[in-house]
């Protein structure tokens, strides 16, 4: 599904990715682990075409992401759900509207929105927060809302970039369980983290990065 072919990313004075090659198959749950600055976020940004490789190529299915034209970018991103460490919710929209916005973006009808949003909020246990704004919710709740937004359009891939970085252990566990459930339903998940404990609890494939290189790629079990 995703194929990195000898990808390097060099900023002015630093190498973020150094000749990275790997493949992720459809339906996999891949944890990318490494210290801050190891290149995890750069890697996810390349899949989203937020960053372009200095050399090499990134493929999403048969699409060469680095060559995607501006007008096709929206189409590509609609196939991917993203969860960030800092949630990145729309602060002046309620929980309901945050999710509705993602549905509107792909052209869903009002009826579809009205029937799907309560359902997905129930899935992440936020039914009681429907009309709350993000700043009226706890960190764990905001992250669950971000996950709900990421999965609402049934993307083929979920990228969770340090989703538990700002959360306590209980909320962290909940988030990981939700991601595993999403993966069980057939969606490919890429999870980046610097927390080894999370990887243990996931128990799936782990790519370990250091200084922009992949130093280990193991199936956990």
């Amino acid at each position, binding site marked *: 599904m995703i194929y990195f072919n000898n990808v390097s990313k060099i900023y002015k004075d630093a190498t973020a990715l150094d000749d990275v090659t790997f493949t992720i198959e459809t339906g996999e749950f891949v944890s990318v682990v490494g210290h801050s600055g190891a290149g995890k976020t750069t890697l996810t940004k390349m899949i989203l075409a937020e960053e372009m490789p200095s050399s090499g190529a990134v493929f999403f299915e048969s699409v060469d992401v680095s060559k995607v034209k501006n007008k096709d970018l929206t189409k590509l991103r609609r196939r991917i759900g993203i969860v960030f460490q800092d949630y990145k919710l729309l602060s002046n929209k309620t929980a309901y509207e945050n999710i509705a*916005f993602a549905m509107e*973006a792909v052209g869903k009808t009002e009826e579809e929105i009205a029937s799907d949003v309560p359902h997905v909020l129930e899935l992440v246990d936020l039914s009681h927060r429907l009309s709350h704004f993000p700043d009226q919710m706890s960190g764990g709740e905001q992250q669950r809302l971000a996950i709900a937004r990421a999965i609402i359009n049934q993307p083929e891939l979920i990228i969770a970039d340090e989703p538990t970085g700002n959360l306590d252990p209980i909320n962290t566990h909940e988030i990981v369980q939700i991601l595993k459930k999403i993966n069980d339903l057939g969606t490919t998940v890429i999870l980046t983290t610097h927390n080894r404990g999370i990887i243990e609890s996931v128990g799936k494939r782990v790519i370990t990065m250091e200084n922009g290189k992949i130093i280990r790629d193991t199936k956990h079990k």
Partner: protein
Amino acid sequence: MALVALKRIIKGGFLNFKRSGLVSWAAVLVVTVTLSVVASIIFLQAILHFSLNQIKDKVDVTIYFTTSAPENKILDLKSSLEKLPEVASVSYTSADEALKIFRARHSSDYPTIQALDEIGSNPLGAYLNVKAKEVSQYESIANFLQSDNALVVGADSIVDKVNYHQNKLVIDRLNSLISGAQKLGFLVTLLFVIISIIITFNTIRLTIFISKEEIGVMRLVGASKMHVRGPFLIEGAIYGVVATLFTLVIFWPATAWLGRNMTDFLGINLYDYFISNFIIIFAILLLSGVGLGIISSFLAVRKYLRK
């Protein structure tokens, strides 16, 4: 589908405006200041225009004829003057009327009236009063009067004097003063409008700067550029509409006061001007406000929409 998208964009714009609270009202305030500048300029131009027209109206050229001039010759000259494109109007005053006016004007001046009575015959000649469309055109009218083909045969001898040549200096000065005032008015207007636009643009840019990160998030969530940009454009238009209403509400009592107390000084009743030109002033303010809001929002969002 497009209709649904449009409905969502409009709804999003209204929600943004409502939820941005103080930031929205700050932007409205700045647009109101800009529109007030525009409205003030409209009124100042009206005062300037009115004053200049009054001055222009006082300028004319009078052709005095000799007492022996036959009336049909004078009327021939009148009709050929009226054919000139520069001429706005020509009024004919016959010798008898000129005498009547003279007597009326000097009715309390007994020696003059007595002297007139003693002469017996009418010493005054007829005259034509010529008004040009523009002050600058008097010279060409005067030149026309001097040229041979302008005057009907023999008319040369019937003209006593043309007062253009006595008034030339005053007319020339007035002419340069009027065109100077108009140019200055235009420059000042331009300057104020440019300053206002820059201030408004920067304020709206700041309100959108607050949403900079969210614009990026919307794009990452898969929203098209129009879906992201649309609500901001609507919000910009709302600033313009609300500011237009505020400006009209401010100028209503302001012009009423000026109309009641300053009409003699300004020479024009600004309240009457406001009321009789309400539709056009409303349209100018609304178009400026909405245009400014939309264009500023468009440019500001564009910067953050690149990715």
